[in-house]
């Protein structure tokens, strides 16, 4: 190419995986602002589910039931509402988070990426992107849900901690399952069916933590213990996924 001189040289080849992951993240965000497939699918999906839940539970408004200690409590209470919010977010995650992997596989850009960057960087970039999208969706959906169902936030710091750690762990599980499912031909059906059983455990933990938002407690341990469970789950999933990602991504 003698005649054309580019502003680069071969010494600039060693990009760290963090820089590569950030470049991939920026690329995905840019593509997402163009197409809005992931955000749109998850947004519409969760808004429709939100309506369905609110409508299905209208009949429960004002109904009292007896709890295990014999007191009359509202049937449609805050912890019930919070649990259903998480079911909703869980389904929303499975409506949209497979897009970024499936898209790369289907359009043939996956091989181009394989040439240019290592598997760890791809995993980090995609995890960052999926977490961002899911956080954005829950940031929009949660206030809407609170308004429509009349859910209280309870203890605010605990509420935010649960939302943040729950969303991050949720996207960690969804990301690795999406990468697995994207390698199969019938991705769509597989993604939900393979991912949801893994999420059931996380959902049990999150619902348990969410209940703590509405229990007045003096000691911080009462709040920290359920949160630790969620954070550990997410950290373990991310660690194992990062270690095993090249087996999923490469041929």
């Amino acid at each position, binding site marked *: *190419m*003698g*005649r*054309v001189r*580019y*502003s*680069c*040289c*071969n010494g*600039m*080849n*060693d*990009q760290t995986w963090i*820089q*590569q992951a950030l*470049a*991939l993240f*920026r*690329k995905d965000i*840019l*593509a997402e602002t*163009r*197409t809005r497939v992931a955000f749109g699918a998850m947004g519409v999906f969760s808004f429709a589910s939100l309506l369905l839940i609110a409508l299905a539970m209208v009949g429960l408004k004002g109904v009292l039931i007896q709890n295990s200690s014999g007191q009359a409590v509202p049937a449609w209470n805050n912890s019930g509402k919070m649990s259903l919010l998480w079911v909703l977010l869980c389904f929303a995650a499975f409506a949209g988070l497979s897009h970024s992997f499936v898209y790369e596989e289907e*359009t*043939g*850009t996956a*091989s*181009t990426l*394989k*040439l*240019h*960057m*290592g598997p760890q960087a791809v995993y980090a970039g995609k995890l960052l992107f999926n977490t961002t999208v899911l956080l954005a969706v829950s940031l929009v959906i949660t206030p809407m849900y609170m308004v429509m169902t009349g859910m209280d936030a309870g203890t605010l710091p605990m509420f935010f901690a649960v939302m943040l750690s729950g969303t991050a762990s949720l996207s960690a599980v969804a990301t690795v399952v999406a990468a697995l499912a994207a390698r199969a031909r019938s991705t769509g059906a597989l993604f939900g069916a393979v991912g949801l059983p893994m999420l059931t455990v996380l959902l049990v933990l999150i619902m348990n933590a969410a209940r703590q938002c509405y229990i007045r407690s003096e000691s911080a341990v009462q709040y920290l213990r359920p949160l630790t469970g969620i954070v550990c789950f997410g950290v373990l999933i991310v660690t194992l996924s990062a270690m095993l990602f090249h087996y999923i991504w*490469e*041929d």
Partner: protein
Amino acid sequence: MTVPPICLDVRGVGHRFGARLLYRDISFSVGNGDVLAVTGHNGSGKSTLLKIIAGLLQPTEGSVELAMNGEVTPPSRRSNFIGYVSPEMALYQELTAVENIRFFGALRGQTFEKIDLREMLAHVGLKGRGSDRVGDYSSGMKQRLKYLIAIMHNPELLLLDEPGANLDVHGTRIVEQIIHERREAGFLTILATNEPEEELWAGCVIPVATV
């Protein structure tokens, strides 16, 4: 620009998909300024051999070594020295040509000034089309952009799978020009092709056949 001594060593490479053996015992050694053509009928595994050379696929037998200055590059870093044009490697349709260039450049730590971008686009005959989405490009224009991205970091080794695919006369001349310039500069180029005219660009030909 001085080019370091390059040596690509392919030793006894064989590959099988499941129970199907593609080929076995392919060996050759090429270096600076060589242009090599890999030929063979459809399904003979030309593209697979290129993927193995690029380190995207592990051969079931044998090994591939790319040495720079006499030092063997580890397979994980090999792709830093490689440019690859292949029908299987697509670009991002919803991004513009410039955004594609910037993204793939960023993965290698390259940043570009506007003036560089304009020159690069003009070089492959895409002058003034930089801010169009790749999805709106014709297949020949996509192929030209792939060339641009494959050579923008001056790779020591350029792999071309079906080099003339979708290109018009002008596009083919650009490719010919690129190969010629690389030969003069002392870089290594390998093509996988079935076209007799494209075989003529190469200094030597390796036929790949199913056993």
